[in-house]
């Protein structure tokens, strides 16, 4: 089977669109700060809140067991199940991590997954491929084929008929089960309450029809109190399934008459995660929004980009709760594009955490050598402005390229520098480099060009943190004398701005303030570099729109799959992501982007002349520059 999966692509895109609509219409983003604060405060004192919760649950008649390891959690459940033969089970990632179903099946018990998606993958002997939509990789045809083959049915590939079959099949299981196992999305200390969200009703039935109930959860699911949990829940369900409320939000405080309830709390690396430098990852509420929006996940799904836990966050969770080799393999699929971060309701800096994680992972030679090359020269060499070299490449050029002493030259602010970065020194970017030099010479006279250095971003995102730190320190020293440093590369800009703050500015945005509207001879589309999505300079298009009239393009914000070196590491995936950029463009067009890596990647499908850097575009077509 191809590693690419169109079912995943369609389903994730649909959820992304619905989620965006819900968040916009219901203003759910406004809940984030409060929810993150609550989560942080709860995790900071997890031990204390667990102690309170455990005491109160026990007083209420619920048995609480804290398990350090998977083996001890499974052992406890197995022992307390006693002679239970039939077990109905709700969806729970923690129990997937524990391989609980497999353990109990080996003991000769019948364990039935009751969530529809989980039931389907159980029949197929697969792992879930998504946090909240376990069978997202399958079509109705795949499900019908499996049911017909396995159960001797003749069902059509119709979601309604297939769901009806499972409903009938599982009714008797709920009624006859000896025990139920469910997960918990949240556990509140005051008053002690387990919260579980679901849509199908299977959680409620698995929890309440059998006489024994096991609620399995992670040490990181604790919250101080029920106050404010509705905000967290709305963010969770809104991010997961684009629903402000799921059909059922179940609460458990005491056993029902005649019922035995056990709460099993698993550590298995969670405490270590919370105490590590990756602790921000512990805020993850497993909503899966980062998977839905991830360009890599959209193409390959969770069986390639994950194991029990998927995507970039999956690499981190696997590192702490699973096997390191698996974590390293999962991390290798992450583009470090940061597309996922704005979608995360808990503000987890996923790409940065994966970068940090990668520090201990080996890099293949084809990646480590270019990084060495990029970092080998002193971080910054300084050059005074030179007149732009004669651009004698046979192309028609605007005046600005050959009239550097034009009276139109503007006065630059004092203490002003332009940092070219490493991308613009490659032969592939010769034209852009010349255009940028000309623009600087013309519009920012007196500015110093800080040349030839690498900002260290590629090193950082590949986990070469000490090399990245050295480069940053060298650059920091060199930037000190300047009030403002302009970068033509949007990715370097976003990275350095996070480190040095507002003095770092995007050349294209500053240039756009100085140039009048241009009239290019084709429709112009904007490609948004992923690293601008997370906040830094995300309004580049708005500022550029003063100069360039952009046409609408539904794929504007879609990742191009470049990821610096990703196209070398995973060429097929990179190409597949790139091809998603193609639809929606007319015959004659120009795509503008200020990330050199995106620019080179987009040229692979659109050709050299159709993809341009904004500085090149603005200078080439500006009246002052001579027009074309």
């Amino acid at each position, binding site marked *: 089977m191809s590693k690419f999966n169109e079912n995943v692509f369609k*389903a994730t895109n649909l959820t992304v669109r619905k989620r965006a609509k819900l968040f916009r219409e219901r203003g759910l983003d406004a809940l984030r700060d409060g929810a993150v604060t609550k989560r942080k405060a709860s995790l900071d004192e997890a031990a204390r809140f667990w102690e309170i919760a455990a005491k109160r649950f026990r007083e209420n008649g619920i048995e609480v067991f804290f398990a350090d390891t998977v083996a001890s959690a499974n052992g406890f459940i197995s022992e307390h199940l006693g002679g239970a033969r039939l077990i109905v089970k709700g969806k729970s990632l923690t129990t997937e991590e524990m391989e609980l179903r497999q353990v109990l099946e080996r003991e000769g018990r019948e364990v039935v997954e009751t969530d529809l*998606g989980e039931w389907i993958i159980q029949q197929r002997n697969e792992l879930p491929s998504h946090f909240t939509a376990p069978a997202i990789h399958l079509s109705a045809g795949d499900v019908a084929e499996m049911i017909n083959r396995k159960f001797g049915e003749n069902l059509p590939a119709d979601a309604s008929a297939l769901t009806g079959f499972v409903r009938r099949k599982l009714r008797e299981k709920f009624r006859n089960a000896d025990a139920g196992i469910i997960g918990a999305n949240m556990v509140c200390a005051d008053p002690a309450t387990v919260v579980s969200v679901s849509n*199908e*009703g299977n959680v409620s*039935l698995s929890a309440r029809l059998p006489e024994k109930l096991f609620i399995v959860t992670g040490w990181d699911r604790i919250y101080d109190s*029920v106050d404010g949990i509705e905000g967290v829940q709305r963010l969770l369900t809104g991010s997961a399934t684009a629903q402000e409320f799921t*059909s059922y*939000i179940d*609460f458990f*405080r005491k056993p029902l008459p005649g019922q035995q309830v056990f709460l099993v709390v698993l550590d298995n690396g969670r405490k270590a995660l919370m105490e590590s430098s990756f602790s921000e990852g512990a805020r993850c509420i497993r909503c899966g929004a980062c998977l839905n929006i991830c360009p890599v996940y959209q193409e390959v799904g969770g069986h390639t980009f994950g194991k029990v836990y998927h995507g970039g966050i999956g690499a981190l969770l696997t590192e702490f709760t699973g096997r390191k080799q698996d974590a390293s393999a999962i991390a290798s699929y992450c583009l470090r594009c940061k597309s996922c971060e704005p979608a995360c309701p808990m503000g987890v800096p996923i790409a940065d955490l994966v970068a940090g994680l990668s520090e201990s992972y080996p890099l293949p030679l084809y990646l480590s050598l270019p990084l060495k090359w990029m970092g080998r020269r002193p971080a910054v060499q300084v050059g005074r402005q030179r007149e732009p070299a004669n651009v004698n490449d046979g192309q028609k050029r605007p005046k600005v390229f050959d009239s550097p002493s034009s009276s139109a030259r503007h006065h630059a602010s004092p203490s002003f520098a332009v940092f070219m970065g490493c991308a613009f020194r490659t032969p592939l970017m010769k034209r852009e480099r010349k255009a940028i030099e000309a623009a600087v010479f013309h519009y920012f006279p007196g500015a110093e060009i800080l040349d030839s250095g690498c900002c260290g971003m590629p090193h950082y995102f590949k986990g070469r943190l000490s090399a990245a730190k050295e480069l940053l320190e060298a650059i920091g020293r060199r930037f000190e004398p300047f009030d403002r440093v302009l970068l033509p590369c949007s990715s370097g800009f976003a990275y350095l701005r996070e480190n040095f703050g507002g003095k770092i500015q995007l050349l294209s945005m500053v240039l756009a303030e100085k140039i009048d509207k241009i009239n290019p001879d084709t429709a112009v589309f904007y490609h948004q570099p992923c690293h601008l999505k997370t906040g830094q300079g995300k309004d580049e298009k708005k500022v550029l729109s003063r100069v360039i009239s952009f046409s609408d393009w539904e794929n504007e914000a879609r990742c191009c799959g470049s990821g610096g070196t990703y196209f070398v590491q995973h060429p097929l995936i990179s190409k597949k992501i790139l091809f998603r950029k193609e639809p929606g463009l007319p015959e004659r067009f120009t795509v503008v982007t200020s990330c050199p890596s995106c620019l080179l990647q987009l040229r692979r499908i659109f050709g050299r002349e159709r993809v341009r850097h904004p500085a090149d575009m603005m200078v080439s077509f500006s009246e002052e520059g001579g027009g074309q």
Partner: protein
Amino acid sequence: MATEWHSISEDELHLFINKIQDRFAGQSVSCVESTGFVPATGAFVPIDSRENAEALFLSDVVVLVCRRRLKSYEEALAGDFAQGCFVSAESKTADIEKKLISGVHGPKECIFVEVQ
């Protein structure tokens, strides 16, 4: 419509439930009292027995009687109960190709009745 909201007076409640039973003749219909509801959003139902749970989750159609307005379901959590559920819709899934299907394991119809 798999989820409906109605507003009626106390006097009309009996008749209303009869009508629902006629409308869904041949299917199991249960009627459950909530202790509070958030208008157009959902209702909180305390669950203190297995029978309660069966009424709420095993019928084909559930009618949720709503008398007390809440600002949010958190208000209901301040009360004392063994177990409970905030119900906002019928049982549903989108697990197969994201197609929304009602009545996976629980009711196919969820009818909220706000009693004035």
